[in-house]
């Protein structure tokens, strides 16, 4: 990642990045990527695209955003999959998911946020305070959401440093909550139209819905192939695909993921896999794994297991459900969007039994040997839900390992022992 052919330092300097620290970040992530991804055996050729995208994560993609903005385009940064990309695109803007998956500038973060805040939120603030994220600096508008108390309050602080708009996500799913959420979408339409100076029309929204559905369909195909034994793609690579989906160019990414899916389907037909047939198969459920958080997948796959699914926001919750495509009017399309987005099963909702049903269904479809429930420390909603998830899934006959961790490396030794013992136990 550090040996890019083009020197982007001038672009980064113009964005106001802290260049020495940013170089250090790229060096660290590049090293992590090499050690984690490039050492894997028998990867699909289609991963070459994602390797390239990652090698240019702060280079070429930022240049694309830069050029887009210089030609009058607007970039909108988001932190959560409840913020509808369709509306952002229908207004003529580009949506980028902002990373929050590494420990950065915690010394500065802890001057603002309590130490006992989840790693995701601390990372989100750290990338801003440390001035190392070009996506943040390219964003003309950030959209926050009230998914949990930690994020909600942290957005207040982030909003003091950058143009930020917060959507209120209801925490129940009754008809009146869907109606309220729809009203939030209407407000967002006005906000986005004001930002870009372009009207969201039935035509532009229908096109955006089709486009984003296309991205989800491609990811569905990639992930459906993982039901095969041997698995044709590693969990690490499949996780990376969803992480990249949040910020890459939509039509290009969709095309490349369809090509990857073609290759995976061919591999399945030929019985080609990344791990030996019969390797322990694991489904991971829990809190999102933002780029570059690859910790648990790496532990599982180093221990000889293969991750075949993620019931998480950087997983099935991102691509599993589609927005209806046959509505004609803007009003109907807003209904469709409200219905689709409120149908995502995040632990911020009560009740959230749908998530447990999803885990059990995925465990069966993907023929897993065990489920790992993953929660970041201080993520109260997922930590509390963990006990009920574990009990219900175990009662359904699937072994569960519960893990609570963060982005640090200090517990990797103990986690590896627990994961290895879990794999020994389920096989």
């Amino acid at each position, binding site marked *: 990642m550090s040996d890019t052919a083009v020197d982007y330092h001038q672009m980064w300097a113009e964005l106001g990045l802290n260049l020495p620290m940013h170089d250090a970040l790229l060096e660290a992530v590049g090293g992590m990527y090499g050690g984690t991804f490039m050492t894997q055996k028998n990867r699909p050729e289609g991963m070459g695209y994602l390797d390239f995208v990652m090698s240019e994560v702060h280079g070429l993609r930022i240049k694309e955003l830069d050029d887009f903005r210089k030609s009058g385009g607007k970039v909108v940064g988001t932190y959560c999959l409840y913020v509808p990309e369709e509306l952002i695109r229908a207004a003529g803007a580009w949506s980028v998911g902002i990373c929050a998956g590494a420990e950065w500038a915690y010394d500065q973060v802890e001057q603002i946020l309590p130490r006992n805040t989840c790693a995701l939120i601390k990372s989100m603030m750290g990338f801003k305070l440390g001035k190392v994220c070009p996506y943040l600096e390219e964003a003309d508008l950030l959209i926050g959401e009230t998914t949990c108390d930690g994020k909600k309050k942290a957005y207040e602080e982030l909003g003091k440093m950058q143009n930020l708009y917060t959507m209120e996500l209801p925490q129940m799913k009754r008809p009146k909550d869907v109606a309220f959420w729809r009203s939030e979408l209407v407000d967002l339409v006005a906000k986005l139209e004001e930002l870009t100076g372009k009207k969201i029309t039935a035509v532009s929204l229908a096109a955006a819905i089709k486009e984003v559905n296309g991205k989800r369909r491609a990811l569905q195909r990639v992930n459906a192939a993982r039901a095969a034994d041997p698995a044709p793609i590693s969990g690490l690579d499949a996780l990376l695909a969803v992480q990249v989906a949040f910020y890459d160019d939509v039509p290009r990414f969709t095309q490349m993921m369809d090509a990857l899916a073609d290759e995976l389907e061919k591999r399945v037909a030929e019985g080609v896999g990344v791990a030996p047939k019969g390797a322990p198969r694991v489904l991971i459920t829990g809190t999102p794994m933002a780029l570059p958080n690859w910790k648990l997948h790496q532990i599982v796959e180093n221990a000889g297991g293969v991750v075949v699914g993620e019931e998480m926001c950087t997983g099935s919750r991102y691509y599993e459900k589609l927005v209806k495509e046959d509505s004609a009017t803007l009003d109907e399309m807003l209904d469709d969007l409200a219905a689709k987005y409120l149908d995502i099963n995040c632990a911020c909702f009560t009740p959230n039994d749908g998530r447990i049903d999803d885990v059990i269904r995925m465990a069966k479809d993907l023929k897993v040997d065990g489920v790992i429930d993953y929660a970041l420390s201080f993520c109260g909603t997922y930590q509390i839900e963990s006990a009920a998830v574990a009990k219900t899934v175990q009662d359904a006959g699937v072994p569960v390992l519960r893990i609570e961790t963060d982005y640090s490396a200090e517990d990797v030794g103990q986690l590896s022992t627990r994961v290895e*013992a879990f794999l020994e136990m389920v096989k």
Partner: protein
Amino acid sequence: MRVLGLDIGSRSVDAVWLMDGTIVDAAVADSGFDPASVAAAFVDRGAHDVIVATGYGRRVAGEAFGADVVTEIKAYAIGASALFPNARAVLDIGGQDTKAIALRPDGRVADFEMNDKCAAGTGKFLEVMAKALGFSLEELGSASMAADSGVQISSMCTVFAESEVTGLVHRGEDRGRIARGLHQSIAKRTLGSLKRVGAQGPLVFAGGVARNPAMVALIRNGFSGEVLVPAEAQLVGAYGAALSAGER
């Protein structure tokens, strides 16, 4: 077949040599600052055809000596079941972590729990507390046995509990009662782990801390089933690792 089982732990490196499944020799050495070299000394004896390693250093041993590796969980399950074929649970309190393992009737692991990050309630915890009280490890155990009751210790964190113990000492609290309180708090935490994994008796109590009679008495008192303590509690992991060679 001659098998060397190595349990490379945080406090000690334990070795068991098997000949066709029977123990022919065993040894224990301090891990020190270079456990790989300590393990290498056992390997250098050359009295084996195959090596199986477990414990924190298992991966290093795998690379250095071409050893097969198993986790401590599996090694203790196999070792304990071999010593006591009717065992249905294993408790291992080692230098740096605690494992509660429930076994199926065939001796395979049914469920397990392990402390996730720190050394709360482990052998290391007892070492630090003994030092804070001016006891040796053996004295800590006997002082606890001799005390008529224990002081309530609320913290399980090694760092916090040490300050708590220091506070109690300064208030003139009896050292024996503090020692007993420390053992009681570990026992309570450990029994909770056993309960969560659904452990039934007979329970095999292994690992270095099983040599502490005060701890054994408290576990025996709090556990619903029979508690069995092997004579060489510290070697169960190395023995289990060596026996697992037959499974491969």
